[in-house]
């Protein structure tokens, strides 16, 4: 019974990873860009939400804001920063020679952004974890002995909804077609009339929203935020993305859940200290033995990397 | 041993549904100077890629010195005595001119010792500089390649291929971007190489150079061979004229017109 509970917990935990994993996989699939700023956007929304609900707007313009508004602004903040990242990593990239390391210029740039954002938050608010006061009600559902907290369940539902919406976007809208065209072949897409200058920022906007929502849901669910919170989630989300297959959205969903599950079961059987080895070991083995993951062949753009 | 240093027999190259080379067979006579010509997209560079091992042909056999080389990995083929240059210059941009040329010598190294002795002021470097001098590039050895003009870089690529002391030299449009006097220069240089026993297989669009340098020509069109014989008679061949100028030109045979098609 306890095991079943742990499994359920693992799936719930995994659902947090899923949204971030989807953000990663979307960016890699469409733009061939491993965006290390993603975990920071997640943190930014959550920390931003906390700061606004605890302190109010910086400079003392208002008092503390109600938590839903605070989180909403947090999500907007994450999206805004994501677009800034696009402006300074992707758009300014100049490929001159096509050598082995040039593909990684945006990746390295995103590492720079990770350092800047995380440390600026530290400078402003310290390194300590903070309590986030979300909804006062804490409904726990009891389904035949298995406990599930309502916010967690809602998160899972939200995630499923987001993924379905994303798939619809990619498949049925004009922008989605543009995104898929860029994923296949950026140069051809340009020639075929896709306005990459307008379509690429959409990816970053989606990234910001996905990470922001994930951060907000995390804050509500677990009630604790810190400048470091992105690091752990980022790790797990990347692992989920790889396991599911780079570029595959459903892969990211499945991968995120698998990682959450792995984490919970590892804690249950071996203790919390072994989680790092387990999750990263899973990632390493996947990369070495089956780098395309579960659904790599069905990714958004084929023939990548 | 046959007297063809390179032989293609029924070579076909398909990429998915696209057939780029279609059942092409020809021989390159040892010690000769053969031109591989044809309109753009005819498959000439693909032939080079198959011969040098970048692609594995879908069908057919490639023979070097009479022996089939299809199973030989691309890395080993330069050691068999074949070197090439590239249509879009592929020099290492951050290395100096002389370093790029020394790269060509790589296949002639023997053992670990060659790999771990410093190159500066070595016999390898002296040899590379000598080669550069012969091509008239003696003022450049230390320059980083990225800063040099197109024409110079084209020549450096040829020197790099020569640094491998090949028996068969594959040149992909060596005269592209060169002015007439540089082209004449190149021609004399290549004649000199040929006189030393190196076989030349040259892809070119400059028909003047082709006519003055090569005695044998193979013409490709849409992946198929349409002519294989003396260069002098290329322009008389109706199929060639049609390939370059379009249908209906076979009847009139203006001299030199085919040479202007690029």
């Amino acid at each position, binding site marked *: 019974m306890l095991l079943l509970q742990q499994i359920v917990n693992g799936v719930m935990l995994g659902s947090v990873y899923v949204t971030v994993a989807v953000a990663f996989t979307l960016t*890699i699939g469409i733009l061939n860009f*491993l965006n290390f700023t993603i975990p920071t956007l997640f943190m930014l929304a959550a920390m931003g939400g906390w700061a606004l609900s605890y302190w109010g707007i*910086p*400079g003392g313009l208002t008092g503390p804001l109600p938590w839903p508004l605070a989180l909403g602004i947090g999500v907007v903040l994450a999206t805004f920063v994501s677009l800034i990242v696009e402006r*300074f*990593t992707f758009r*300014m*990239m100049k490929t001159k020679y096509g*050598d*082995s*390391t040039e*593909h*990684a*210029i945006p*990746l*390295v*740039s995103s*590492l*720079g952004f*990770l*350092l*800047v954002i995380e*440390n600026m938050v*530290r*400078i402003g*608010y*310290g*390194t300590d974890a903070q309590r986030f006061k979300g909804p006062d009600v804490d409904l726990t559902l009891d389904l035949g002995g298995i406990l599930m907290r309502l916010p967690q369940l809602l998160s899972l539902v939200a995630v499923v909804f987001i993924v379905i919406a994303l798939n619809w976007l990619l498949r049925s809208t004009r922008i989605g077609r543009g995104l898929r065209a860029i994923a296949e072949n950026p140069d051809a897409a340009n020639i075929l009339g896709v306005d990459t200058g307008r379509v690429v920022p959409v990816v970053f906007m989606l990234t910001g929203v996905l990470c922001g929502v994930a951060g907000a849901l995390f804050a509500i669910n677990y009630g604790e935020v810190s400048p470091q919170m992105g690091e752990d989630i980022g*790790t797990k989300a*990347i692992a989920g993305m790889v396991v599911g297959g780079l570029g595959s959205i459903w892969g990211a969903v499945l991968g995120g859940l698998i990682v959450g599950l792995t984490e919970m079961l590892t804690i249950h059987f071996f203790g919390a200290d*072994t989680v*790092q*080895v387990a999750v990263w070991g899973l*990632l*390493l083995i996947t*990369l*070495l033995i089956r780098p395309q993951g579960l659904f790599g062949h069905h990714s958004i753009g084929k023939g990548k990397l | 041993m046959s007297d063809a240093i390179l032989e293609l027999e029924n070579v076909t190259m398909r990429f998915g549904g696209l057939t780029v080379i279609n059942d092409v067979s020809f021989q390159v006579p040892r010690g000769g100077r053969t031109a591989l010509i044809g309109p753009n997209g005819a498959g000439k560079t693909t032939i080079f890629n198959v011969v040098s*091992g970048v692609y594995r042909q879908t069908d057919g056999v490639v023979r070097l010195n009479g022996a089939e080389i299809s199973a030989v990995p691309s890395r080993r083929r*330069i050691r068999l005595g074949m070197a090439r240059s590239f249509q879009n210059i*592929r020099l*290492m941009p*951050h*290395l*100096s001119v002389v*370093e790029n040329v020394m790269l060509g010598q*790589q*296949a002639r190294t023997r053992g670990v010792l060659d790999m771990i*002795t410093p*190159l500066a002021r070595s016999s390898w*470097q002296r040899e590379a*500089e000598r080669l550069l001098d012969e*091509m008239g*590039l*003696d*003022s450049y*050895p*230390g320059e*980083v390649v990225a*800063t040099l003009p197109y024409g110079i870089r084209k020549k450096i690529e040829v020197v790099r291929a020569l640094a*491998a002391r090949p028996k068969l030299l594959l040149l992909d449009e060596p005269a592209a971007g060169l002015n007439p006097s540089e082209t004449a220069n190149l021609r004399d240089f290549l004649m000199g190489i040929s006189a030393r026993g190196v076989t030349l297989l040259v892809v070119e669009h400059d028909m003047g150079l082709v006519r003055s340098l090569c005695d044998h020509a193979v013409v490709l069109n849409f992946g198929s061979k349409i002519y294989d014989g003396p260069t002098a008679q290329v322009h008389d061949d109706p199929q060639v004229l049609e390939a370059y100028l379009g249908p209906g030109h076979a009847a009139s045979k203006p001299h030199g017109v085919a040479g202007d098609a690029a």
Partner: protein
Amino acid sequence: MSGYWAGILSILAINIVFAYGIYLSVATGQLNLGGAGFQAVGAYAAAYLSEGFGLPVYVTIAASAAAAGIIGAVMAFPILRTRGVYLVLATFAFAEVVAGSILNSETLGGPTGMSVPDFIDWQVPVVAAILVSLFVFYLMSTRFGLAMRAVHDDETVSDLMGISIRATQVIAFSIGAALAGLAGGLYAHSFSFVEIQVFNALLSIYVLLYVLLGGTQTPWGPIVGAAFFTLLPEALRAFLPAIKEILVGLFGVTGDISNPDESWRFVILGALTILMMAIRPEGLVTRTMIERLTLRRGRTRPETEASA
């Protein structure tokens, strides 16, 4: 020399050795985001042999390089089969697995770390840094160094020139791992204590970034990068109070400011990275720059009349 500056010099020397370790991979075209993993291997190897067996320092430090080098060589084969972003992730994952394994190892002290007897003074890391620099300059001047840079610039052509891309990458990666391990051994004996929390993902990120900032085209880059990163806090200490005043005036600061100096250093590192990648991804020191500075033409024979 004062104890303070001796400490800085030690750290600078260790960072230079560490930087060269990553440089060798990057110069061959592989971004190595697992530096901390190899450094941890070296540090713990030295610590364990020193603490557990009482072996002398020159043995433990040699062992730190050897252990990291061997593990690097073994991991190189599977890891270097991956490409591009997969390679970056694989090196990252490797470092995390190393850290996680050490965290769970009783013999290696687990989360509480290990103390290291036999302190080494600043002269040892400095001499090591000098020797390593000379070694890398030498290596890059050989045909093998040429092969490394060729593989970085154009794998297809390198292959056609007869270079074994695999062998070149594996060897460069392994030597790099050994150097990172050496840095770890030097660290262990310079700080008399190792704990796995130090060798984390951020450390791997820092070293990769400052190697890239310094410039990967020549062996001067790692020295410039490491010097910048190590000495930046010192420069900040001089200027930071003034900057902080300005910012407090502009935005109003809330909450504690713990370790602000540390954080500013990383903000600057990050900001410079973004700037560099946008305008000069080759890094600060480039091949062209060195050629211009030394005005060398690299000839072995006197210049004859220039033609062409």
